[in-house]
C-alpha cells in the first residue's frame, strides 16, 4: 500500500527552474507515466522522488510521510535506469542480490528471493553470466529484477526501454505491463514516447518546461487535451492545428481554416459554446481521423487538393490543402490514388477541438 504525493514541488538548476509548483497524487498500485519532451523536468521529478535530487521547495510524501529530507537509501524505493546500470563486475545473480545484501536478511532468503524473481522474469539460465554477455532485452529484465527483488514501496522507471530497438521495445512494453498486473506496485514511469505512455499508463502526467500540463487517463488526454501542447504531443500522426475563424451566415455556422473563403459547416450551438471567442485568436484542432474525405462532391464537403500521400500500410495519411493551411487526413489505404487529385473534405464537428491562440488553452467545446 503506497501512495505518493507531490505538494508544491519546485526545483532550480542555477537560474533555470526545472520543476514549477508541481502537485500530484499517485494512488496505491497506480501506474503513472510522466510524459514530455527532453528537458521538461520529468526525469528530475522522478529523481527527486527517488532521493537522487534535492528539491528547493515543497513536499514529497510517501504514505503521508514527508521524505524530501531522507536519503535515497532510506526511502525504500527502487529505480530502473535508462542505461540499466547493471554493475559490470558482478554476475546477474549478484546484481539482483545486491539490494538484498544491504538488508540484514539471511543468505538462504537472498537466494530464494533471487531465484523467485528470476523465474518470474524468465532469466534463471542467465544468473551466472556477466551483464556484458547479455542482450539489451535481458539486461532490461535483470534491471527490473534488481528493482523488484526487495519488494520496494514504489518502482521508478526512467525511460527503461528507450535504449532498445523498436521490436524489442514493443515486447518489453508488454512485459512491463504483465509484471505490473502480476506484482502490483505503485509505479512512476518516465518516457518521451507517447505510444509507450498510452499503452502502459493508468494515468498520464504531461509536463512541458517544468509545468504540469494535464493529468488524466490515456483516453482523457487523447480525447480532451487541456491545451495545444497536449493536443499536439499526444497522438500519432499529430493533431492538425490551424488558425480559424467562425462565422454565421443565414443561421449557418461555418468554420473557415487558413483564410479559405468557404468554411466547414458546424452545428449552430458552436457559437454559444465558444462563449464570445468566435471573433479571432482561435485555433481549430482536429486529429487526422476527424478529417473526412470523399472522392465525389457531397453535401457539406469542400473541394480540396491532395498534396502528399503517405502510405502507412493499414492506412494512408493525405495532406489536403485548405486555404493557406494543410490538414492531414487519415484515409483507407489507396483511397486517394495520387497526389494532385481533387477530392472533397469535411471536418467532423464531434472530433473538433477549439483553442485560445493566446493562452493555448482548450475552450472545452464538445459538440
Amino acid at each position, binding site marked *: 500500500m503506497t501512495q505518493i504525493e507531490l505538494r508544491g514541488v519546485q526545483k532550480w538548476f542555477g537560474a533555470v527552474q526545472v520543476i514549477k509548483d508541481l502537485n500530484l497524487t499517485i494512488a496505491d498500485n497506480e501506474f503513472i507515466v510522466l510524459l514530455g519532451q527532453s528537458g521538461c523536468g520529468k526525469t528530475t521529478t522522478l529523481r527527486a522522488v*527517488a*532521493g*537522487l535530487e534535492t528539491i528547493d521547495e515543497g513536499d514529497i510524501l510517501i504514505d503521508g510521510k514527508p521524505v524530501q529530507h531522507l*536519503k*535515497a*537509501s532510506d*526511502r*525504500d*524505493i*527502487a*529505480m530502473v*535506469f535508462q*542505461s540499466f*546500470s547493471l*554493475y*559490470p*563486475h558482478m554476475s546477474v545473480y549478484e546484481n539482483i542480490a*545486491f*539490494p538484498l545484501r*544491504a*538488508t540484514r536478511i539471511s543468505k538462504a532468503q537472498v537466494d530464494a528471493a533471487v531465484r523467485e524473481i528470476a523465474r518470474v522474469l524468465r532469466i534463471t539460465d542467465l544468473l551466472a553470466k556477466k551483464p556484458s554477455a547479455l542482450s539489451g532485452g535481458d539486461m532490461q529484465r535483470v534491471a527490473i529484477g*534488481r528493482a523488484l527483488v*526487495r519488494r520496494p514501496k514504489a518502482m*521508478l522507471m526512467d525511460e527503461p526501454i528507450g535504449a532498445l530497438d523498436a521490436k524489442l521495445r514493443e515486447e518489453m512494453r508488454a512485459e512491463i505491463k504483465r509484471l505490473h498486473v502480476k506484482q502490483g506496485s505503485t509505479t512512476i514511469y518516465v518516457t518521451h514516447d507517447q505510444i509507450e505512455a498510452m499503452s502502459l499508463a493508468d494515468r498520464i502526467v504531461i509536463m512541458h518546461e517544468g509545468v504540469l500540463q494535464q493529468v488524466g487517463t490515456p483516453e482523457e488526454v487523447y480525447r480532451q487535451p487541456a491545451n495545444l501542447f497536449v493536443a499536439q504531443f499526444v497522438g500519432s500522426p499529430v493533431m492538425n492545428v490551424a488558425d480559424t475563424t467562425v462565422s454565421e451566415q443565414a443561421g449557418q455556422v461555418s468554420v473557415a481554416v487558413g483564410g479559405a473563403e468557404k468554411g466547414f459547416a458546424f452545428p449552430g450551438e458552436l457559437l454559444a459554446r465558444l462563449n464570445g471567442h468566435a471573433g479571432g485568436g482561435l485555433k481549430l484542432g482536429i486529429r487526422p481521423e476527424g478529417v473526412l474525405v470523399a472522392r465525389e462532391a457531397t453535401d457539406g464537403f469542400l473541394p480540396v487538393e491532395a498534396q502528399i500521400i503517405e502510405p502507412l500500410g493499414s492506412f494512408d495519411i493525405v495532406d489536403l490543402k485548405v486555404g493557406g493551411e494543410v490538414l492531414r487526413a487519415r484515409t483507407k489505404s489507396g483511397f486517394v490514388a495520387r497526389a494532385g487529385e481533387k477530392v472533397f473534405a469535411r471536418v467532423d464537428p464531434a472530433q473538433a477541438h477549439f483553442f485560445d491562440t493566446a493562452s493555448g488553452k482548450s475552450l472545452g467545446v464538445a459538440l
Partner: protein
Amino acid sequence: MAAVQTSGERALNRLAIVAVLVITMIFLAPIYWIVATSFKPRNLATTIPPTVVFTPEISPFVKLMTKRSQLREQPTPEEYAAAPWWERMVFDGGEKVVRDGKDQVQWSAYPSRFLNSLIIAVTSTVLAVGMGTFTAYGFSRFKVKGEGDLLFFILSTRMLPPVVVAIPMFLMYRIVGLTDTHIGLIILYTAFNLSFSVWLMKGFIDEIPKEYEEAALVDGYTRMQAFFKIVLPEAATGIAATAVFCFITAWNEYAFALMMTNRRAQTAPPFIPSQVGSGLPDWTVIAAGTFLFLLPVAFFTFLLRNHLLRGMSFGAIRK
C-alpha cells in the same frame, strides 16, 4: 575491414615491423648491457671492444651482498679448501669476506638499502593512490567551489623541477628531524605523487557512469558503501595504472633521496653509484646492484600488465 591488402600496404606493414624491431632493440640495449655486465667476470667488464661471448658467473652478486676487503696475502690452500663456494669466488677476485668477532659473515649495505627502497616506495604508493582516489572521487562526483583552480593548484605542485625545492626542503626537514628517516621520504614521495594520482584517477572515475552509484544508493546503500562496492572495483584498472606510475616514480627517485638520506633510510638509487667512488670501481658489482634493482618494477608492471594496457588506452574508446 577489407581483408585484401595491396602490395604497397604490405610493404608499408613490413617497414613498420622493421622499424618497431629496431626501436625495441635500441630501447633494450642498455638493459642488455646491465644484465650482461652483472654476470661478467670483473676483467671482462670494461674491455674494448666489449666482450659479448663469456661464461656467466654470479660472483658479482656475491660481492654485492657481502662486505669485503683487499687480500694482503693469498689464502693458504687449506683456507681456500675450507671456504664455501661463494667465498672462493671472492678470493679469486683478490678480496676476502669480512667477518665479525663471532666469525659471522658481514652483509654489505645493499640489502638494507634495497629494503628501504621497497618500504618507502610501497608505502608512498599506497598513500598517494589511496588519497588520490578519494580526492578524485570528490572532484568527479560533487560540485566543488573553484574546482578548476583547485585542480590546477594540485597540478602546479608538479611544475617546479624537484631539485629547485630540494635545498629548502632539506633545511625544513633538518629542523623537524625528518632527514634520513623513512617517514620523511614517504611524506615527500606521497606529496610528489599525489597531484599525478589525483589527475589520473579523476580521469578514470569520470569515465565510470554515476548511474552505477545512484543505482546502489536507491538499492539501499550509503554513499561510502557505494564507493567501496561499486566505484572501487570499477576503477581497478585506473588504480593499477596509477599505482604503477607512482611506484616507478618513488622507486627511481634519486635527487631527494641523495640529499635527505645517507644511512638509515637511504634508498638504493643514491647507494648504487656511491659504490663507484670507493677504490677502483668494480662495474660488475654495480651492474648486479642495478639489475636486482630493476626486478621489482618489472615484476610489478608484469603483474598489472592487463590493467595497464586498458589503462593506457583509457578515454580512447567510448563506452
